[in-house]
C-alpha cells in the first residue's frame, strides 16, 4: 500500500448526502477483468443521456479536472462492498475524502488503499465546505496526516481526528496481511481450541 503523509490538491465539493457506490463506480460499466478505473468514477453523472459530457457535473468543470480531495456529506459510500469505488478515486488523483460520515465498508476499503477518510462534524464541516465552495478550485488545500491538519485558503488550519492505529497504518503504508500474519501462532491455537470445543466449525464435509 502506498504511504500517506501529506497530500496537496484541488478540493472538489460534491455536496450531497448518501452518495452510493452505484453512483461512484457503476457496475453496469464493467468491461471485464481490465477495468478502466479512471473512466469509471461517477461515470453516469459525468455524461448526459446522449453520451456527451455533462458540463454541469462538478468533476467536468475546468477547475476540477485534476482533483486531489473530495468534500462531501453524510454516509458517503453507502451500498455495495465493491472496492472499485475506492480504486476509481485513486485513479483520478483523489487521495483524501472529507465527509460528514462514511458508510462502514467504504471506510474500511479506503484504509486498505491509502485513501485518507476524514470525518468533520457540525460547524467544522460546514465552515470547511463553505471555504471549499468559495475557493472554487482556484487554489489547493494541503492535508497533513502527521499534524492532523488541513490547510488552505480562506481560513485557519482545520484539525481532524483519526484513530491512532488507522493513522499509523496510512503513514507507514503497512501491509495488512503482514500485520496479521504476525499473529499466526494465535490463529493456530484458536483453531485447535475450536477443534476441541466446536469441531463442526473447523470442517466442511458434504455428508452425501
Amino acid at each position, binding site marked *: 500500500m502506498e504511504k500517506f503523509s501529506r497530500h496537496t490538491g484541488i478540493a472538489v465539493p460534491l455536496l450531497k448526502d448518501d452518495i452510493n457506490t452505484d453512483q461512484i463506480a457503476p457496475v453496469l460499466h464493467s468491461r471485464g477483468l481490465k477495468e478502466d478505473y479512471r473512466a469509471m468514477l461517477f461515470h453516469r453523472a459525468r455524461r448526459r443521456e446522449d453520451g456527451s459530457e455533462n458540463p454541469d457535473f462538478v468533476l467536468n468543470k475546468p477547475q476540477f479536472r485534476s482533483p486531489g480531495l473530495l468534500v462531501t456529506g453524510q454516509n458517503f459510500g453507502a451500498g455495495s462492498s*465493491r472496492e472499485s469505488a475506492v480504486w476509481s478515486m485513486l485513479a483520478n488523483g483523489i487521495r483524501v475524502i472529507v465527509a460528514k460520515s462514511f458508510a462502514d465498508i467504504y471506510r474500511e476499503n479506503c484504509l486498505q488503499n491509502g485513501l485518507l477518510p476524514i470525518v468533520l462534524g457540525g460547524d467544522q464541516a460546514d465552515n470547511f465546505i463553505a471555504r471549499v465552495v468559495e475557493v472554487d478550485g482556484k487554489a489547493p488545500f494541503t492535508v497533513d496526516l502527521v499534524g492532523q491538519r488541513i490547510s488552505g485558503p480562506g481560513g485557519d488550519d482545520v484539525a481532524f481526528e483519526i484513530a491512532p*492505529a488507522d493513522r499509523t497504518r496510512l503513514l507507514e503504508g503497512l501491509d*495488512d496481511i503482514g500485520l496479521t500474519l504476525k499473529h499466526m501462532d494465535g490463529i493456530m491455537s484458536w483453531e485447535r481450541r475450536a477443534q476441541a470445543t466446536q469441531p463442526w466449525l473447523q470442517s466442511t464435509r458434504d455428508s452425501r
Partner: protein
Amino acid sequence: MQQSLFDKIWDFHRVGERADGRDLLYIDRHVLHELHAHHAFTRLEQQQRPVRRADLTFAVQDHTIATAPGRDDETNPSGSAFIKAMREGCRKNGIKLFDVDDPEQGISHVVAPELGIVLPGATHAVPDSHASTVGGVGALAFGCGTSELTHILATQVMALKRPKRMRVRLDGGLGAHVNAKDVALRLIAEIGVAGARGHAVEYAGSAVRGIPIEQRMTLCNLNIEMGGRSGFVAPDDATFTWLAGRPFVPQGTQWDRALAHWRTLTTDDDAVFDREIALDCSTLEPQISWGTDPSQVVGISGSVPDPTALDPHRRAAAAGAYAYMNLSPGTPLVGVPVDRVFIGSCTNSRLPDLQAAAAIVRGRRVAEGVIAMVVPGSSSVKREAEALGLDRVFREAGFFWGESGCSMCAGGNGDRGQPGERCVSTTNRNFENRQGPQVRTHLASPATAAASAIAGRIADVRRMMSGAA
C-alpha cells in the same frame, strides 16, 4: 456478566488484538463470487501467499452469470472473463466452486444456508454487502471489500473494529400478504439508510419468531440498507429443524453436540445494547419504495410524500427522487403504470418467495406490455419450484422463468431494463441507474411484485386477492 448473542459469538471467535488495536476475528466460512475473487487470486499469486484454509472456503458464479435457458460461459459476454478466472482461481487454490453447470449453483447468500455450509453461531464473510443474509440462521456475517477478501484467504481472519450492539424488536403478527420484506422496508424508512451504521443488529421479538427462516434471511439481507455492519436472528427450534439434514451440517453425534451448543446462542435477559428500537408489525400494510434510496418508502395505500411532510434533512434527496422517478408529491402509489417486474435476488428468491408470488399469479395473466421475470436464487430452488409446478404457473401467466443468478438486482449479467422503464422489483436497492440506465425501481415484496405484474400497475395485493381490484 450478561451478554448479548453478538458478544458471545464475537468473543469466542476473537483470536486476539492486532498491533493496530483491531480485533482479529476468525472466519469459519468464507464464500466468494466471481465479480471480486479474481483480483484476490491475482494478488495472492503476486505476493506468493497461499490460500490458508481452502477447506473453509467456497465459491459461486452468481453476479455476472446469464439467466437465459441453456446458458453457458459466453451467454453474457461481459461476464465470461470473470467466470473463467473464477474457475481457474478455484482450481489452482483447491476451492470448491459451484460452477455454471453445477446443480447447486446459485447466489452465494442463498446457496450457503441451503446447503448448510453456514451454521448458527458461525462467522461468515462474503465480498458482498448483503453477506448478513445468512444472519437468518443465526450466523454472524460480514461483507468485505477485495483487500479484506484477500486478507481472509491468506489468514482466515478479519481485522475488525468491534461494532456497537443494536437490537430491533419486532412485535405483533403480520397481516395477510405482509412479510419480512415489508417489515424491513418500513424499518429502513423509520431509521434511515445510515440508521444502523457501525452496529451489529440483533432482530428479536414475536414477529421475528413467527416468520419462517427464509423470511428471517430477507430481514437480515436488508440490514445493510440501513447501514448495519451485520445483522442476525438468534437461532431457535425453527432454525434447527430447517437446518437438519442439509448436506454440510454436522451429522450424527456431531449434530447432537452442535445442537446442544446452538441452544446456548441466545441473548441474556439483562444484556445491554448500545441502541434499541421497536416496531409494531401488527398494523403494517405492504410497503413499497417510491424514491431512489431504500428509506424512501410508503405503505401501499399511501402516496408519494409531500416534501413538507419529510424530515428537513431528507428533503434534498427527495427532490432528486421525484424527478428521477417521474412522480409528483401526492400521487397515490397504487395505480402507477409499470413496464417491468422482477422477482429474484438474494433478498427474495428462495422457494417461499416464489410460492408467495405464484399464489398471486396462478390462473391470472401478466398485463399486456409488461415484461415480468422470475429468477430463482439457486439452481436447487429452481428445481424444487419446478417439482411443485411453479415454473408452469409463472410461464403460463406470461413470466420469463430464468436460470439462477443475481440477474437484474445490479444488472451485472446484462439483465436490465430499458431507459425510462418503471420496474417493481423484489431486490434490495432502488438506486438510480442500478437496474439499467434511467430505470425507475420500486422495491416491494414478491406478492406485491406479482400483483403489480398482473395489474400492469402498482397494486395492493390484498385488494387483488379479496377480489376488490
